[in-house]
């Protein structure tokens, strides 16, 4: 039986989520279009409103501030491109970090191709983007700062509240990709001064194919849609709402909010046990800040082995060598190169990511398999 330690790529759907989605799919009363004016449409709208309230509660938002999307990529695109375009008359400069998810970086590339200017800040050797570095990058024409709360490869946690405060002082919109943070780190869009926040259901034990963008009430009207059609989601995201997916995300958000403290405490213990086991192997380096890290990710580089072979030697464990979104690439992780890792060490990285279903026994077994895999590959490799 494969040990699943790839929760940063996708989490298993919680049984409660699956049960409620299955019931919703089978419920004849929920088959109507939620935009329809009749009573059946109203019943669907009521369930969607319930889900919207649950997602809003997870991040300290109001339900009206949640816009459904097809996932985090769309949410990140809508936030970055939509906000930048709408404010183009005021300024055409965006600040982000070079360690952001590819869906933010690619959206910035797209803006750059159309005359915008983008500053991509490099992290320090621990993966941190210091708020003073962001403050120094801001210009009078800066309209948006985009920064992820928890890095998807290293698990490093950024000080979003400090960045939010300095953006708010200057009237600059602040977008946070919180996909890895939701259900694991405290999130409160008000105290963190966040204007836009991306969420993904399948990163928090919900279904794939649905996400959300928080757009603060004050920001509404300052984001341009990317899609055009009906007036759903206040015109920001037209298209028939995916009722059952949204219901699933709502249940996942409720569970994430209710279980965040206990899940986080348990995963922190397991994460530390895992690092203790794999860190005992000589030539293993922890990637990212040793303390400022989320509860579910341990990213390591291993000297003297090749990353793909390490993954294959550990095939009883489902792992990623970096972001699953870049798994087809032969290039070393840009995020790890920013930490100062050599191309060889960046290519030998493994990301262990834990989740609600991870057990202590699995962590112990993964540690043993890791040590055996590294020993096997070093036995095969030429002497350094």
């Amino acid at each position, binding site marked *: 039986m494969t040990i699943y330690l790839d929760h940063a790529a996708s989490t298993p759907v919680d049984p409660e989520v699956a049960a409620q989605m299955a019931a919703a799919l089978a419920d004849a009363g929920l088959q109507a279009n939620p935009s329809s004016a009749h009573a059946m449409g109203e019943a669907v709208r009521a369930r969607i409103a319930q889900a919207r309230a649950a997602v809003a509660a997870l991040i300290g938002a109001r339900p009206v501030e949640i816009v459904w999307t097809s996932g985090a990529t769309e949410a990140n695109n809508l936030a970055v491109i939509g906000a930048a375009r709408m404010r183009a008359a005021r300024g055409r400069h965006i600040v982000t970090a070079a360690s952001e998810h590819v869906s933010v970086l690619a959206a910035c590339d797209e803006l750059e191709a159309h005359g915008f200017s983008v500053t991509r800040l490099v992290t320090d050797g621990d993966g941190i983007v210091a708020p003073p570095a962001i403050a120094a990058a801001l210009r009078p024409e800066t309209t948006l700062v985009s920064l992820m709360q928890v890095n998807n490869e290293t698990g490093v946690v950024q000080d979003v509240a400090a960045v939010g405060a300095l953006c708010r002082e200057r009237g600059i919109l602040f977008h946070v990709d919180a996909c890895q943070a939701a259900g694991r780190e405290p999130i409160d869009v008000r105290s963190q001064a966040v204007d836009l926040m991306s969420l993904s259901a399948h990163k928090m034990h919900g279904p794939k194919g649905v996400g959300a963008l928080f757009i603060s009430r004050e920001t509404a009207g300052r984001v341009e849609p990317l899609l055009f059609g009906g007036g759903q989601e206040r015109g920001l995201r037209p298209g028939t709402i995916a009722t059952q997916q949204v219901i699933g995300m709502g249940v996942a958000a409720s569970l994430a909010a209710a279980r965040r403290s206990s899940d986080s405490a348990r995963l922190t213990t397991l994460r530390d046990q895992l690092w203790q086991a794999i860190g005992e192997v000589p030539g293993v380096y922890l990637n990212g800040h040793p303390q400022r890290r989320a509860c579910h990710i341990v990213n390591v580089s291993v000297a003297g*082995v*090749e990353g*793909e072979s390490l993954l294959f030697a550990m095939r009883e464990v489902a792992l990623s060598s970096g972001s699953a979104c870049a798994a087809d690439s032969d290039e070393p992780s840009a995020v790890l190169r920013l930490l100062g890792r050599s191309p060889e060490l960046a290519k030998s990285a493994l990301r262990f990511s834990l989740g609600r279903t991870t057990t202590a026994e699995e962590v112990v077994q993964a540690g043993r398999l890791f040590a055996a895999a590294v020993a096997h590959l070093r036995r*095969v490799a030429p002497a350094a």
Partner: protein
Amino acid sequence: MHYSPLVREHFDRPRQLGPPRGPGPVARGLAGSPAEGACILIEARVVDGRLEEVTFRALGCPWVIAGCSLAVERLVGAPVAALAGFDPAALAAELDLPVERLGRLLILQDALQNCLADWDTTQPATAR
């Protein structure tokens, strides 16, 4: 990534890991680097013009390790000149290697050829 049963077998149980254990002169051929995606060391012990023992060490992807293991296993007993006869394309087909990885087997070819060159330059003519 999909790896064939043959790749799995030789990756998990690589044959003839170096160095050679028997007595006598050994030729060495090194090629590649970690930055190139593979680093391969081939060592051959030659007796009476034949490859008595051929071993490898490799840092690389599963195809590199399996390819080295298969190649050295097949060279045992062959004339020393067989080190120059390695056919990367044939082994690539046998391993079901993705075309974009063919370069990794060219590094193996270089290591085998470097091993032969080492033998030719370091051994007295009488030993060849």
